[in-house]
Protein backbone atom coordinates (compact mmCIF):
# COMPACT_ATOMS: atom_id res chain seq x y z
CA UNK A 1 0.00 0.00 0.00
CA UNK A 2 1.38 3.42 -0.96
CA UNK A 3 1.99 5.81 1.88
CA UNK A 4 0.43 9.28 1.82
CA UNK A 5 2.89 12.18 2.05
CA UNK A 6 0.57 15.16 1.79
CA UNK A 7 -2.95 15.22 3.18
CA UNK A 8 -5.17 18.23 2.70
CA UNK A 9 -8.51 18.50 4.49
CA UNK A 10 -11.15 21.21 4.25
CA UNK A 11 -8.59 23.69 3.00
CA UNK A 12 -9.84 27.17 2.34
CA UNK A 13 -7.65 29.98 1.14
CA UNK A 14 -8.38 33.53 0.10
CA UNK A 15 -6.00 36.37 -0.65
CA UNK A 16 -6.62 39.68 1.09
CA UNK A 17 -8.64 42.13 -1.03
CA UNK A 18 -9.22 39.51 -3.72
CA UNK A 19 -12.36 37.69 -4.81
CA UNK A 20 -10.40 34.55 -5.66
CA UNK A 21 -10.78 31.60 -3.33
CA UNK A 22 -9.45 28.09 -3.20
CA UNK A 23 -11.47 25.36 -1.55
CA UNK A 24 -10.02 21.85 -1.34
CA UNK A 25 -12.24 19.49 0.65
CA UNK A 26 -9.82 16.58 0.55
CA UNK A 27 -6.66 15.78 -1.33
CA UNK A 28 -3.96 13.20 -0.76
CA UNK A 29 -0.62 12.92 -2.52
CA UNK A 30 1.43 9.79 -2.08
CA UNK A 31 5.12 9.53 -1.39
CA UNK A 32 7.35 9.37 -4.48
CA UNK A 33 4.38 10.04 -6.72
CA UNK A 34 4.38 12.24 -9.81
CA UNK A 35 1.63 14.79 -9.72
CA UNK A 36 0.70 17.37 -12.32
CA UNK A 37 -1.23 20.46 -11.31
CA UNK A 38 -3.18 21.71 -14.28
CA UNK A 39 -5.81 24.31 -14.93
CA UNK A 40 -6.38 27.67 -16.57
CA UNK A 41 -4.19 30.64 -15.76
CA UNK A 42 -5.18 32.18 -12.46
CA UNK A 43 -7.04 29.09 -11.25
CA UNK A 44 -4.70 28.72 -8.25
CA UNK A 45 -2.09 26.13 -9.33
CA UNK A 46 0.81 28.13 -7.92
CA UNK A 47 -1.28 29.05 -4.86
CA UNK A 48 -1.90 25.38 -4.09
CA UNK A 49 1.78 24.55 -4.62
CA UNK A 50 2.75 27.41 -2.30
CA UNK A 51 0.28 26.18 0.32
CA UNK A 52 1.86 22.72 0.17
CA UNK A 53 5.32 24.27 0.41
CA UNK A 54 4.28 26.28 3.47
CA UNK A 55 4.82 29.63 1.80
CA UNK A 56 1.15 30.54 2.22
CA UNK A 57 -0.95 29.70 5.25
CA UNK A 58 -4.52 28.45 4.69
CA UNK A 59 -7.43 30.54 5.95
CA UNK A 60 -9.04 27.34 7.19
CA UNK A 61 -8.40 23.61 7.15
CA UNK A 62 -5.23 21.60 7.44
CA UNK A 63 -2.28 20.52 5.34
CA UNK A 64 -0.33 17.59 6.71
CA UNK A 65 3.08 16.94 5.24
CA UNK A 66 4.67 13.79 6.65
CA UNK A 67 1.95 14.04 9.31
CA UNK A 68 3.11 17.51 10.35
CA UNK A 69 0.35 20.12 10.20
CA UNK A 70 1.75 23.15 8.40
CA UNK A 71 -1.09 25.31 9.75
CA UNK A 72 0.24 24.91 13.27
CA UNK A 73 3.68 26.26 12.31
CA UNK A 74 4.69 29.88 12.49
CA UNK A 75 6.37 31.58 9.56
CA UNK A 76 9.88 30.76 10.71
CA UNK A 77 9.01 27.10 11.24
CA UNK A 78 7.32 26.91 7.86
CA UNK A 79 10.43 28.42 6.29
CA UNK A 80 12.53 25.78 7.97
CA UNK A 81 10.13 23.10 6.78
CA UNK A 82 10.45 24.49 3.27
CA UNK A 83 14.23 24.61 3.38
CA UNK A 84 14.47 21.01 4.59
CA UNK A 85 11.59 19.32 2.78
CA UNK A 86 10.84 21.20 -0.41
CA UNK A 87 12.95 21.69 -3.49
CA UNK A 88 12.00 24.18 -6.21
CA UNK A 89 12.60 24.07 -9.95
CA UNK A 90 11.80 27.37 -11.62
CA UNK A 91 10.68 28.03 -15.17
CA UNK A 92 13.80 30.08 -15.90
CA UNK A 93 16.03 28.11 -13.53
CA UNK A 94 16.93 31.22 -11.48
CA UNK A 95 20.58 30.26 -11.26
CA UNK A 96 22.81 32.95 -9.81
CA UNK A 97 25.25 33.89 -12.53
CA UNK A 98 27.72 35.47 -10.12
CA UNK A 99 28.15 32.19 -8.24
CA UNK A 100 30.01 29.15 -9.51
CA UNK A 101 28.17 25.97 -10.45
CA UNK A 102 29.15 24.32 -7.17
CA UNK A 103 27.97 27.32 -5.16
CA UNK A 104 24.68 27.34 -7.06
CA UNK A 105 24.29 23.68 -6.27
CA UNK A 106 24.89 24.27 -2.58
CA UNK A 107 22.86 27.49 -2.51
CA UNK A 108 20.00 26.10 -0.33
CA UNK A 109 22.58 25.35 2.36
CA UNK A 110 24.29 28.72 1.95
CA UNK A 111 21.15 30.79 2.42
CA UNK A 112 19.71 28.94 5.39
CA UNK A 113 21.26 29.75 8.73
CA UNK A 114 20.19 26.45 10.25
CA UNK A 115 21.80 24.36 7.54
CA UNK A 116 25.50 23.72 7.31
CA UNK A 117 27.60 22.65 4.40
CA UNK A 118 28.95 19.40 5.74
CA UNK A 119 31.25 16.92 4.05
CA UNK A 120 28.14 14.87 3.39
CA UNK A 121 26.57 17.79 1.49
CA UNK A 122 29.74 18.24 -0.52
CA UNK A 123 29.74 14.56 -1.38
CA UNK A 124 26.09 14.76 -2.37
CA UNK A 125 26.79 17.77 -4.54
CA UNK A 126 29.56 15.86 -6.31
CA UNK A 127 27.39 12.81 -6.71
CA UNK A 128 24.49 14.84 -8.14
CA UNK A 129 26.85 16.75 -10.42
CA UNK A 130 28.21 13.45 -11.67
CA UNK A 131 24.77 12.01 -12.26
CA UNK A 132 23.77 15.03 -14.36
CA UNK A 133 27.11 15.14 -16.16
CA UNK A 134 28.53 18.46 -14.93
CA UNK A 135 31.06 17.21 -12.40
CA UNK A 136 33.91 18.71 -14.46
CA UNK A 137 32.22 22.11 -14.55
CA UNK A 138 31.74 22.74 -10.85
CA UNK A 139 34.13 25.69 -10.85
CA UNK A 140 32.59 27.33 -13.89
CA UNK A 141 29.84 29.92 -13.91
CA UNK A 142 26.28 29.10 -15.08
CA UNK A 143 26.76 31.39 -18.08
CA UNK A 144 29.47 29.02 -19.27
CA UNK A 145 27.07 26.05 -19.31
CA UNK A 146 24.82 24.97 -22.14
CA UNK A 147 21.05 25.34 -21.84
CA UNK A 148 20.64 21.64 -21.05
CA UNK A 149 23.36 21.74 -18.42
CA UNK A 150 21.78 24.78 -16.78
CA UNK A 151 18.44 23.02 -16.67
CA UNK A 152 20.01 19.90 -15.12
CA UNK A 153 21.85 22.10 -12.63
CA UNK A 154 18.52 23.68 -11.60
CA UNK A 155 17.05 20.20 -11.05
CA UNK A 156 20.10 19.10 -9.05
CA UNK A 157 19.87 22.23 -6.88
CA UNK A 158 16.25 21.36 -6.06
CA UNK A 159 17.38 17.91 -4.97
CA UNK A 160 20.51 18.83 -3.02
CA UNK A 161 18.76 18.90 0.36
CA UNK A 162 17.21 15.49 -0.38
CA UNK A 163 13.72 16.95 -0.08
CA UNK A 164 10.54 14.90 0.25
CA UNK A 165 8.76 17.21 -2.20
CA UNK A 166 10.00 18.85 -5.38
CA UNK A 167 7.81 21.58 -6.81
CA UNK A 168 8.43 22.40 -10.44
CA UNK A 169 6.73 25.62 -11.50
CA UNK A 170 6.12 25.32 -15.24
CA UNK A 171 9.62 24.02 -15.95
CA UNK A 172 8.78 23.57 -19.63
CA UNK A 173 6.78 26.77 -20.07
CA UNK A 174 9.09 28.36 -22.61
CA UNK A 175 10.22 25.24 -24.43
CA UNK A 176 9.21 23.52 -27.65
CA UNK A 177 7.52 20.13 -27.36
CA UNK A 178 10.62 18.07 -27.97
CA UNK A 179 12.78 19.96 -25.48
CA UNK A 180 9.92 20.07 -22.97
CA UNK A 181 9.70 16.30 -23.08
CA UNK A 182 13.47 15.94 -22.56
CA UNK A 183 13.42 18.35 -19.60
CA UNK A 184 10.46 16.62 -18.01
CA UNK A 185 12.00 13.19 -18.47
CA UNK A 186 15.22 14.42 -16.87
CA UNK A 187 13.27 15.92 -13.96
CA UNK A 188 11.35 12.71 -13.47
CA UNK A 189 14.49 10.61 -13.70
CA UNK A 190 16.32 12.65 -11.09
CA UNK A 191 13.41 12.88 -8.66
CA UNK A 192 12.74 9.17 -9.03
CA UNK A 193 16.38 8.44 -8.23
CA UNK A 194 16.19 10.47 -5.03
CA UNK A 195 12.73 9.24 -4.10
CA UNK A 196 11.17 12.69 -3.98
CA UNK A 197 7.52 13.42 -4.69
CA UNK A 198 7.27 15.61 -7.76
CA UNK A 199 4.52 18.21 -8.03
CA UNK A 200 4.64 19.90 -11.40
CA UNK A 201 2.62 22.91 -12.44
CA UNK A 202 2.08 22.69 -16.16
CA UNK A 203 -0.09 23.85 -19.01
CA UNK A 204 1.36 21.31 -21.39
CA UNK A 205 -1.22 18.56 -21.87
CA UNK A 206 1.16 16.51 -24.02
CA UNK A 207 3.24 15.78 -20.95
CA UNK A 208 0.42 14.57 -18.74
CA UNK A 209 0.96 10.93 -19.60
CA UNK A 210 4.27 11.13 -17.74
CA UNK A 211 2.45 11.73 -14.43
CA UNK A 212 0.61 9.27 -12.25
CA UNK A 213 -1.86 11.83 -10.98
CA UNK A 214 -3.29 14.91 -12.59
CA UNK A 215 -5.11 17.42 -10.45
CA UNK A 216 -7.20 20.07 -12.13
CA UNK A 217 -6.91 22.91 -9.64
CA UNK A 218 -9.71 24.76 -11.43
CA UNK A 219 -12.11 22.31 -9.80
CA UNK A 220 -11.19 23.70 -6.39
CA UNK A 221 -11.19 27.40 -7.12
CA UNK A 222 -13.77 30.03 -7.75
CA UNK A 223 -13.87 33.77 -8.35
CA UNK A 224 -16.80 35.64 -6.76
Amino acid at each position, binding site marked *: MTESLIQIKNLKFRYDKSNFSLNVPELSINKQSRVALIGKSGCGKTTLAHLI*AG*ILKPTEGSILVSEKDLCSLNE*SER*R*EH*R*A*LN*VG*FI*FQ*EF*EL*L*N*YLRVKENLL*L*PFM*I*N*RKMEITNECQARAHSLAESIGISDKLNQYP*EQLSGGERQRLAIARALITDPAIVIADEPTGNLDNETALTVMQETLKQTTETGATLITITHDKTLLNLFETTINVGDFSKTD
Partner: protein
Amino acid sequence: MFHKVKSAIQIAALTLTFFLPFATAIMVKHFSTSITERGKNTPLLFGPKGDRFDLTISTLFFRGDPLSQLSMADFQLLDEEKRGLAVPLSLGFTARKFPVVGTTVDYFIARNIVTKAGTVPLTLGDAVLGNECATTLNAQIGDHILTDQVNLYDLSASYPLKLKVVGILDQTKSADDNAIFTSMGTAWVISGLGHGHEPLNEETANDKLLGKTEKQITANASIEQFIEINKTNINEFHFHSDLARLPVSSIIVFPKSPKDGTILKAKYLKHQKIQPLEPNKVIDELLDVVIRLKRLFDSSYAITSLASVLFLTVLILLSLQTRKRESKALFLMGCSRGTICMLFSAEIIILCIFSTLFALVGAYALTFLGSDILQLLL
Protein backbone atom coordinates in the same frame (compact mmCIF):
# COMPACT_ATOMS: atom_id res chain seq x y z
CA MET B 1 31.48 39.14 -15.88
CA PHE B 2 28.51 41.50 -15.96
CA HIS B 3 28.36 41.60 -12.15
CA LYS B 4 32.11 42.20 -11.90
CA VAL B 5 31.95 45.07 -14.36
CA LYS B 6 28.84 46.47 -12.67
CA SER B 7 30.49 46.30 -9.25
CA ALA B 8 33.70 47.84 -10.60
CA ILE B 9 31.74 50.75 -12.09
CA GLN B 10 29.78 51.24 -8.87
CA ILE B 11 32.99 51.19 -6.81
CA ALA B 12 34.65 53.62 -9.22
CA ALA B 13 31.66 55.99 -9.05
CA LEU B 14 31.55 55.89 -5.26
CA THR B 15 35.34 56.17 -4.99
CA LEU B 16 35.34 59.30 -7.11
CA THR B 17 32.47 60.72 -5.07
CA PHE B 18 34.33 60.14 -1.82
CA PHE B 19 37.80 60.92 -3.12
CA LEU B 20 37.54 64.67 -3.63
CA PRO B 21 36.22 65.57 -0.16
CA PHE B 22 38.69 63.16 1.46
CA ALA B 23 41.61 64.47 -0.56
CA THR B 24 40.70 68.08 0.19
CA ALA B 25 40.24 67.38 3.89
CA ILE B 26 43.53 65.48 4.15
CA MET B 27 45.45 67.98 2.08
CA VAL B 28 44.09 70.95 3.99
CA LYS B 29 44.88 69.20 7.28
CA HIS B 30 48.38 68.34 6.07
CA PHE B 31 48.83 71.84 4.71
CA SER B 32 47.60 73.53 7.89
CA THR B 33 49.70 71.25 10.12
CA SER B 34 52.91 71.89 8.21
CA ILE B 35 52.31 75.60 7.76
CA THR B 36 51.25 76.10 11.39
CA GLU B 37 54.23 74.13 12.64
CA ARG B 38 56.58 76.33 10.66
CA GLY B 39 54.82 79.44 11.97
CA LYS B 40 55.11 78.28 15.56
CA ASN B 41 58.81 77.60 15.11
CA THR B 42 59.46 81.11 13.90
CA PRO B 43 58.57 83.51 16.72
CA LEU B 44 59.37 86.83 15.07
CA LEU B 45 60.00 88.04 11.60
CA PHE B 46 61.20 91.43 10.39
CA GLY B 47 60.99 92.48 6.81
CA PRO B 48 60.31 95.36 4.47
CA LYS B 49 56.86 96.93 4.67
CA GLY B 50 54.40 95.44 2.26
CA ASP B 51 52.21 92.40 2.00
CA ARG B 52 52.55 90.49 5.29
CA PHE B 53 51.43 87.23 3.70
CA ASP B 54 54.06 87.43 0.94
CA LEU B 55 56.76 88.29 3.44
CA THR B 56 55.81 85.44 5.79
CA ILE B 57 55.50 82.86 3.02
CA SER B 58 58.75 83.88 1.36
CA THR B 59 60.66 83.85 4.65
CA LEU B 60 59.21 80.63 6.02
CA PHE B 61 58.88 78.63 2.82
CA PHE B 62 61.40 80.37 0.53
CA ARG B 63 58.76 80.99 -2.10
CA GLY B 64 58.64 84.19 -4.10
CA ASP B 65 60.81 87.19 -3.47
CA PRO B 66 60.03 90.23 -1.32
CA LEU B 67 59.67 93.29 -3.54
CA SER B 68 61.89 95.49 -1.43
CA GLN B 69 64.71 94.61 0.85
CA LEU B 70 66.37 95.56 4.09
CA SER B 71 70.09 96.03 4.51
CA MET B 72 72.74 94.46 6.66
CA ALA B 73 72.71 97.70 8.65
CA ASP B 74 69.09 97.00 9.59
CA PHE B 75 70.08 93.52 10.63
CA GLN B 76 72.98 94.84 12.69
CA LEU B 77 70.71 97.29 14.49
CA LEU B 78 68.29 94.54 15.31
CA ASP B 79 71.10 92.25 16.43
CA GLU B 80 72.54 94.92 18.64
CA GLU B 81 69.33 94.97 20.64
CA LYS B 82 70.61 91.70 22.15
CA ARG B 83 67.11 90.42 22.74
CA GLY B 84 67.55 87.15 20.96
CA LEU B 85 69.15 85.39 18.06
CA ALA B 86 68.67 87.35 14.85
CA VAL B 87 69.21 85.52 11.57
CA PRO B 88 69.34 87.30 8.20
CA LEU B 89 68.00 85.67 5.08
CA SER B 90 68.77 86.38 1.48
CA LEU B 91 66.14 84.95 -0.86
CA GLY B 92 65.04 85.03 -4.45
CA PHE B 93 67.58 82.86 -6.27
CA THR B 94 67.39 79.25 -7.35
CA ALA B 95 69.67 76.44 -8.38
CA ARG B 96 68.21 73.60 -10.43
CA LYS B 97 64.79 75.06 -9.48
CA PHE B 98 65.44 74.71 -5.75
CA PRO B 99 65.46 77.93 -3.71
CA VAL B 100 68.89 79.17 -2.69
CA VAL B 101 68.79 80.66 0.79
CA GLY B 102 71.62 82.85 1.99
CA THR B 103 71.90 82.87 5.75
CA THR B 104 74.28 82.46 8.66
CA VAL B 105 75.21 79.41 10.73
CA ASP B 106 72.81 80.72 13.38
CA TYR B 107 69.91 79.63 11.18
CA PHE B 108 70.80 75.98 11.67
CA ILE B 109 71.35 76.45 15.39
CA ALA B 110 68.04 78.28 15.87
CA ARG B 111 66.08 75.74 13.86
CA ASN B 112 67.95 72.85 15.42
CA ILE B 113 68.99 71.47 12.06
CA VAL B 114 72.01 69.22 11.89
CA THR B 115 73.86 67.85 8.94
CA LYS B 116 73.48 64.25 7.93
CA ALA B 117 76.82 64.49 6.22
CA GLY B 118 79.45 67.19 5.81
CA THR B 119 79.23 70.65 7.30
CA VAL B 120 77.09 73.76 7.15
CA PRO B 121 78.23 76.40 4.60
CA LEU B 122 81.08 78.26 6.20
CA THR B 123 83.01 79.74 3.31
CA LEU B 124 82.15 81.56 0.12
CA GLY B 125 80.82 79.24 -2.58
CA ASP B 126 79.81 76.46 -0.17
CA ALA B 127 76.30 75.05 -0.21
CA VAL B 128 74.49 72.64 2.01
CA LEU B 129 71.47 70.83 0.60
CA GLY B 130 68.17 70.05 2.23
CA ASN B 131 67.47 66.35 2.53
CA GLU B 132 64.82 66.09 -0.20
CA CYS B 133 66.78 68.40 -2.44
CA ALA B 134 69.88 66.19 -2.19
CA THR B 135 67.80 63.09 -2.92
CA THR B 136 66.07 64.67 -5.91
CA LEU B 137 69.29 66.02 -7.38
CA ASN B 138 71.13 62.84 -6.41
CA ALA B 139 73.86 65.14 -5.13
CA GLN B 140 76.79 64.06 -3.00
CA ILE B 141 79.30 66.03 -1.01
CA GLY B 142 81.91 67.43 -3.37
CA ASP B 143 79.44 67.79 -6.25
CA HIS B 144 78.78 71.13 -7.84
CA ILE B 145 75.45 72.79 -8.55
CA LEU B 146 75.06 75.72 -10.89
CA THR B 147 72.66 78.46 -9.86
CA ASP B 148 69.87 79.28 -12.32
CA GLN B 149 70.27 82.24 -14.63
CA VAL B 150 67.87 84.94 -13.44
CA ASN B 151 67.16 86.40 -16.85
CA LEU B 152 68.59 84.82 -19.96
CA TYR B 153 68.02 87.98 -22.01
CA ASP B 154 69.71 90.34 -19.56
CA LEU B 155 73.28 90.61 -20.80
CA SER B 156 74.30 92.66 -17.81
CA ALA B 157 73.01 90.05 -15.36
CA SER B 158 75.49 88.22 -13.19
CA TYR B 159 76.82 84.85 -14.20
CA PRO B 160 75.43 81.70 -12.63
CA LEU B 161 77.64 80.55 -9.78
CA LYS B 162 78.91 77.02 -9.36
CA LEU B 163 78.16 76.05 -5.77
CA LYS B 164 80.14 73.34 -4.05
CA VAL B 165 78.11 70.89 -1.98
CA VAL B 166 79.77 70.68 1.43
CA GLY B 167 76.93 69.17 3.41
CA ILE B 168 73.54 67.49 3.37
CA LEU B 169 71.02 68.26 6.08
CA ASP B 170 69.09 65.78 8.14
CA GLN B 171 65.43 65.49 7.23
CA THR B 172 63.30 68.15 8.93
CA LYS B 173 59.95 67.57 7.20
CA SER B 174 59.76 71.28 6.53
CA ALA B 175 60.61 73.70 3.74
CA ASP B 176 64.27 73.34 4.75
CA ASP B 177 64.29 69.91 3.13
CA ASN B 178 63.78 71.46 -0.27
CA ALA B 179 66.26 74.31 -0.11
CA ILE B 180 69.92 74.97 -0.78
CA PHE B 181 71.65 76.98 1.92
CA THR B 182 74.66 79.19 1.42
CA SER B 183 76.36 81.94 3.37
CA MET B 184 75.08 85.49 2.99
CA GLY B 185 78.26 86.32 1.09
CA THR B 186 77.60 83.57 -1.46
CA ALA B 187 74.06 84.84 -1.91
CA TRP B 188 75.39 88.31 -2.63
CA VAL B 189 77.81 86.87 -5.17
CA ILE B 190 74.91 85.05 -6.85
CA SER B 191 72.99 88.31 -6.96
CA GLY B 192 75.95 90.00 -8.63
CA LEU B 193 76.81 92.29 -5.74
CA GLY B 194 80.06 90.51 -5.27
CA HIS B 195 82.29 88.88 -7.82
CA GLY B 196 85.71 87.44 -8.50
CA HIS B 197 87.92 87.87 -11.54
CA GLU B 198 91.51 87.44 -12.59
CA PRO B 199 93.76 89.84 -10.71
CA LEU B 200 94.17 93.36 -12.07
CA ASN B 201 97.68 94.65 -11.63
CA GLU B 202 100.63 95.99 -13.45
CA GLU B 203 100.98 92.74 -15.37
CA THR B 204 97.41 92.76 -16.74
CA ALA B 205 97.42 93.03 -20.52
CA ASN B 206 96.40 96.42 -21.87
CA ASP B 207 93.66 94.99 -24.14
CA LYS B 208 91.77 93.96 -21.00
CA LEU B 209 91.82 97.45 -19.52
CA LEU B 210 89.55 100.43 -19.95
CA GLY B 211 91.72 102.74 -17.94
CA LYS B 212 94.73 102.81 -15.72
CA THR B 213 95.84 105.45 -13.22
CA GLU B 214 98.22 105.32 -10.31
CA LYS B 215 95.36 104.69 -7.89
CA GLN B 216 92.94 102.65 -9.95
CA ILE B 217 92.87 100.11 -12.75
CA THR B 218 89.59 99.69 -14.66
CA ALA B 219 89.09 96.50 -16.63
CA ASN B 220 86.80 95.92 -19.62
CA ALA B 221 84.35 93.04 -20.14
CA SER B 222 87.06 90.74 -21.48
CA ILE B 223 88.45 90.23 -18.01
CA GLU B 224 87.85 86.67 -16.88
CA GLN B 225 85.03 86.40 -14.32
CA PHE B 226 85.12 83.40 -12.03
CA ILE B 227 81.98 81.33 -11.95
CA GLU B 228 83.29 79.05 -9.25
CA ILE B 229 84.77 79.90 -5.89
CA ASN B 230 87.66 77.68 -4.88
CA LYS B 231 90.78 77.77 -2.76
CA THR B 232 92.86 79.37 -5.49
CA ASN B 233 90.50 82.21 -6.37
CA ILE B 234 88.56 82.83 -3.16
CA ASN B 235 90.74 85.82 -2.32
CA GLU B 236 89.87 87.43 -5.65
CA PHE B 237 86.19 87.70 -4.66
CA HIS B 238 85.10 91.05 -3.32
CA PHE B 239 82.06 93.31 -2.95
CA HIS B 240 81.84 96.75 -4.51
CA SER B 241 79.80 98.02 -1.65
CA ASP B 242 79.91 98.73 2.03
CA LEU B 243 78.91 95.55 3.91
CA ALA B 244 76.25 97.47 5.82
CA ARG B 245 74.51 98.37 2.57
CA LEU B 246 74.31 94.83 1.23
CA PRO B 247 70.73 93.57 1.03
CA VAL B 248 68.81 91.25 3.35
CA SER B 249 65.44 89.85 2.32
CA SER B 250 64.17 89.38 5.84
CA ILE B 251 65.33 88.70 9.36
CA ILE B 252 63.99 86.04 11.67
CA VAL B 253 64.45 86.51 15.36
CA PHE B 254 64.34 83.93 18.11
CA PRO B 255 63.87 86.10 21.24
CA LYS B 256 65.41 85.13 24.57
CA SER B 257 62.01 85.40 26.23
CA PRO B 258 58.44 86.36 25.30
CA LYS B 259 59.09 89.69 27.00
CA ASP B 260 62.11 90.34 24.77
CA GLY B 261 60.02 89.42 21.77
CA THR B 262 57.26 91.85 22.77
CA ILE B 263 59.72 94.68 23.39
CA LEU B 264 61.46 94.06 20.08
CA LYS B 265 58.20 93.94 18.20
CA ALA B 266 56.88 97.06 19.91
CA LYS B 267 60.04 98.93 19.03
CA TYR B 268 59.55 98.27 15.33
CA LEU B 269 55.77 98.68 15.20
CA LYS B 270 55.99 102.21 13.89
CA HIS B 271 59.23 101.83 11.97
CA GLN B 272 59.25 103.59 8.63
CA LYS B 273 60.48 100.74 6.45
CA ILE B 274 60.51 97.62 8.65
CA GLN B 275 57.47 95.66 9.74
CA PRO B 276 57.61 93.19 12.61
CA LEU B 277 55.45 90.11 12.22
CA GLU B 278 54.50 87.13 14.32
CA PRO B 279 54.38 84.42 11.65
CA ASN B 280 52.10 82.33 13.84
CA LYS B 281 49.37 84.97 13.66
CA VAL B 282 49.89 85.64 9.96
CA ILE B 283 49.62 81.91 9.28
CA ASP B 284 46.40 81.78 11.31
CA GLU B 285 44.98 84.56 9.16
CA LEU B 286 46.09 82.74 6.04
CA LEU B 287 44.57 79.48 7.26
CA ASP B 288 41.35 81.27 7.98
CA VAL B 289 41.15 82.10 4.28
CA VAL B 290 42.05 78.52 3.38
CA ILE B 291 39.45 77.12 5.77
CA ARG B 292 36.83 79.45 4.33
CA LEU B 293 37.75 78.26 0.87
CA LYS B 294 37.56 74.68 2.09
CA ARG B 295 34.09 75.33 3.45
CA LEU B 296 33.09 76.62 0.06
CA PHE B 297 34.52 73.49 -1.56
CA ASP B 298 32.87 71.33 1.10
CA SER B 299 29.46 72.73 0.35
CA SER B 300 30.08 72.16 -3.33
CA TYR B 301 31.19 68.59 -2.60
CA ALA B 302 28.16 68.06 -0.38
CA ILE B 303 25.82 68.98 -3.24
CA THR B 304 27.80 66.87 -5.73
CA SER B 305 27.91 63.97 -3.28
CA LEU B 306 24.19 64.23 -2.64
CA ALA B 307 23.53 64.14 -6.38
CA SER B 308 25.86 61.14 -6.75
CA VAL B 309 24.23 59.34 -3.84
CA LEU B 310 20.78 59.98 -5.35
CA PHE B 311 21.97 58.62 -8.69
CA LEU B 312 23.44 55.59 -6.97
CA THR B 313 20.24 55.07 -5.00
CA VAL B 314 18.29 55.00 -8.24
CA LEU B 315 20.86 52.59 -9.64
CA ILE B 316 20.60 50.34 -6.60
CA LEU B 317 16.80 50.45 -6.68
CA LEU B 318 16.83 49.53 -10.37
CA SER B 319 19.30 46.78 -9.63
CA LEU B 320 17.04 45.46 -6.86
CA GLN B 321 14.08 45.65 -9.23
CA THR B 322 15.90 43.54 -11.81
CA ARG B 323 16.83 41.10 -9.08
CA LYS B 324 13.30 40.74 -7.77
CA ARG B 325 13.01 37.24 -9.24
CA GLU B 326 16.30 36.30 -7.66
CA SER B 327 15.12 37.40 -4.21
CA LYS B 328 11.80 35.58 -4.73
CA ALA B 329 13.65 32.39 -5.66
CA LEU B 330 15.84 32.70 -2.57
CA PHE B 331 12.73 33.19 -0.44
CA LEU B 332 11.04 30.14 -1.93
CA MET B 333 14.14 28.10 -1.20
CA GLY B 334 13.74 28.92 2.47
CA CYS B 335 15.83 32.03 2.84
CA SER B 336 14.35 34.47 5.34
CA ARG B 337 13.37 37.97 4.25
CA GLY B 338 15.85 39.31 6.79
CA THR B 339 18.67 37.26 5.27
CA ILE B 340 17.72 38.38 1.75
CA CYS B 341 17.69 41.98 2.92
CA MET B 342 21.04 41.42 4.63
CA LEU B 343 22.54 39.85 1.50
CA PHE B 344 21.56 42.77 -0.68
CA SER B 345 22.55 45.33 1.99
CA ALA B 346 25.88 43.57 2.51
CA GLU B 347 26.58 43.98 -1.18
CA ILE B 348 25.94 47.73 -0.95
CA ILE B 349 27.94 47.99 2.29
CA ILE B 350 30.88 46.11 0.74
CA LEU B 351 30.77 48.46 -2.26
CA CYS B 352 30.76 51.45 0.10
CA ILE B 353 33.59 50.06 2.24
CA PHE B 354 35.79 49.35 -0.78
CA SER B 355 35.00 52.75 -2.29
CA THR B 356 35.78 54.52 0.97
CA LEU B 357 39.02 52.57 1.33
CA PHE B 358 40.08 53.31 -2.24
CA ALA B 359 39.15 56.97 -1.83
CA LEU B 360 41.12 57.22 1.42
CA VAL B 361 44.14 55.42 -0.01
CA GLY B 362 43.97 57.63 -3.09
CA ALA B 363 43.67 60.78 -1.00
CA TYR B 364 46.60 59.78 1.24
CA ALA B 365 48.64 58.76 -1.80
CA LEU B 366 47.94 62.13 -3.37
CA THR B 367 49.02 63.89 -0.18
CA PHE B 368 52.10 61.70 0.11
CA LEU B 369 53.13 61.87 -3.53
CA GLY B 370 51.85 65.36 -4.04
CA SER B 371 53.86 67.23 -1.44
CA ASP B 372 54.92 69.34 -4.40
CA ILE B 373 51.29 70.29 -4.90
CA LEU B 374 51.23 71.49 -1.29
CA GLN B 375 54.35 73.48 -1.94
CA LEU B 376 52.74 74.97 -5.02
CA LEU B 377 49.78 76.02 -2.87
CA LEU B 378 52.18 78.32 -1.15
